[in-house]
């Protein structure tokens, strides 16, 4: 797994250009509610894409930084959704209380589960995360008196913030989008920080990372907790936004989808999985409105991507770009 995009040395002008491009992209994303006033459905789809992007980012924080491959990331997403939904029904509808509560409880649970999980190597970790996802999926049915079982968690009250109800789709979109931007900024910051460097060292060579004195288990656990908490936050936001949570959120298909976002976008590129999630969510919506057999195309595409473009579509594109640029340089020289 090379990490060309993140570690590519950038000349000054290029960096300024990249900064401007990012700013433009961020502004374009923020402007979505302004030009979709007459298309309420597009705005909802865009909001879902933003939630998907947050989940994808959370998985990339684990997969892309420490190289731990989670096949049950939907477990944390669904856990956050159910926890927030249940707390909203039973305690309070104030997001200022709800979301921190969800994050804190997720940190506690993911620390306990992660304590055993991150000590496992590669395949065992992958298998156990898948199993953990299925266990939480089963838990929804065990506690069906609280969770609503098969029907899903219905009737989550409209959330409030500082006494105001959050109802308008545009406000929702900006709230979700704001969370995404903050999370992205945080992810980029971590990537440049010593913590991010230590994580990358673990991904590249765990043995050597241990030899140079890094506390590998603790660092892996930290990345697992950060990743789980962000996913749970996304789940909580989604449950409040949607007004309901269904057991499908915890299904392994959902985990597969999240994994697909990251693989499609390129593991470890931070921005790639976010774009992957957005593209994928929109595509899924339009394809599944045409055909019933969405899962076949999804699975087939998944297999194809892994075989043909293991670095993700964006990895493939940037590879091609570099090759063209190199060829051009070669011609002019």
């Amino acid at each position, binding site marked *: 797994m090379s990490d060309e995009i993140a570690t590519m040395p950038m000349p000054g002008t290029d960096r300024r250009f990249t900064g401007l491009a990012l700013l433009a992209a961020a502004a374009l994303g923020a402007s979505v509610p302004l030009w979709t006033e007459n298309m309420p459905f597009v705005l909802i789809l865009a909001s879902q894409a933003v939630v998907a992007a947050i989940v994808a980012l959370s998985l990339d924080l684990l997969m892309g930084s420490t190289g731990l491959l989670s096949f049950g990331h939907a477990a944390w997403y669904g856990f956050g959704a159910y926890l927030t939904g249940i707390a909203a029904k039973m305690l309070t509808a104030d997001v200022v209380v709800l979301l921190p509560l969800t994050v804190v409880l997720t940190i506690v649970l993911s620390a306990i589960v992660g304590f055993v999980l991150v*000590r496992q190597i590669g395949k065992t970790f992958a*298998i156990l995360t898948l199993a953990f996802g299925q266990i939480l999926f089963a838990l929804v049915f065990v506690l069906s008196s609280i969770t609503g079982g098969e029907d899903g968690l219905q009737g989550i009250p409209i959330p409030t913030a500082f006494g105001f109800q959050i109802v308008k789709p545009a406000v929702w979109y900006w709230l979700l989008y704001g969370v995404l931007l903050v999370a992205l900024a945080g992810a980029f910051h971590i990537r440049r920080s010593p913590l991010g460097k230590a994580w990358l060292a673990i991904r590249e060579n765990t043995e050597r990372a241990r030899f140079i004195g890094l506390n590998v288990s603790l660092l892996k656990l930290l990345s697992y907790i950060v990743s789980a908490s962000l996913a749970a936050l996304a789940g909580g936001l989604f449950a409040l936004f949607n007004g309901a949570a269904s057991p499908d959120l915890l299904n392994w298909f959902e985990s597969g989808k999240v994994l697909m976002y990251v693989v499609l976008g390129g593991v470890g590129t931070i921005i790639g999985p976010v774009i992957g999630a957005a593209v994928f969510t929109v595509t899924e919506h339009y394809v599944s409105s045409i055909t019933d057999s969405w899962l076949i195309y999804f699975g087939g595409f998944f297999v194809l991507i892994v075989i043909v473009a293991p670095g993700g579509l964006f990895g493939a594109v940037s590879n091609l770009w570099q090759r063209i640029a190199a060829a051009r340089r070669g011609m002019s020289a």
Partner: protein
Amino acid sequence: MLAASLALNGLVMGSVLLLFSLGLTLIYGVGRIVNFAHGAFFSLGAMAGIWSANSGLPFWAALFVVPLGVGLLGVALDWLVFARIRDRPMVDSLLLTFGLALLITGVLYELGGRNVQILAIPPALQSVVSLGAIKLPMYRVFLSAVAVALTMALLLFLKNSDWGLRVRAANDNPEMGACLGIDREKLMHSVVGVGAALAAISGVVGAPIFTAYATVGDKILILAFMTVILGGLGSLRGAIVAAYVVGLITVFGEGYFGGQLALMLLFVLVMAMLINWPRGFFGEGRTE
């Protein structure tokens, strides 16, 4: 009384689980691939059992035709798909089989897998056996007999045949095996074929009990994963012991606490076990 009957049912469950897990262990042992699509092979077997019953094929014939078909599919998959990622990092094989599982499940959904169907038990096996005061349906006895017989056959084959020697060699030391002229490519085709066939036959013989639908293999796959982790990844005798342990725990848990809680109990147990013995019962599992 309940305990004795649960114990018998646990043995039945363990036998099916064993048959299913052996394929998983072999594919892992020879190809270093954790096959997430193994549950989909089970579902495919169960659904194929229903299709053949609907097309008038007798149950006994289905027991041969279905594993043969799915086994050939396994060979084709290995040849066309798995072979493409043989030298890639581990991540790719996990992602690939995961995508494959989604693909097969999607196809099964389109072929009537949305509804739960039950395969009819053949008339010859509809009686009930009484062991003292415990009554056990004849079919469950038959089910475990098939599973145990096939497992024994496979183990004997692994121990005594030329093919088995190659498989064990590739399992123990792939590089050395390659040096001695073992063609890993061809071997892997056959191993995936056998593994898929075993999963499919457990699907067919299990269909009258576990029913048949597109995701029927999911739960058994999770149980099988617990089995191979408890026994140690790639360890054959570990898998044999672990399959019965998992089977008994599942059935007892279901009897006393209800189905889904049993799964949770098992997961906690596996996690607890991993803290101290990450290499499984016999300490010979791989950690890589």
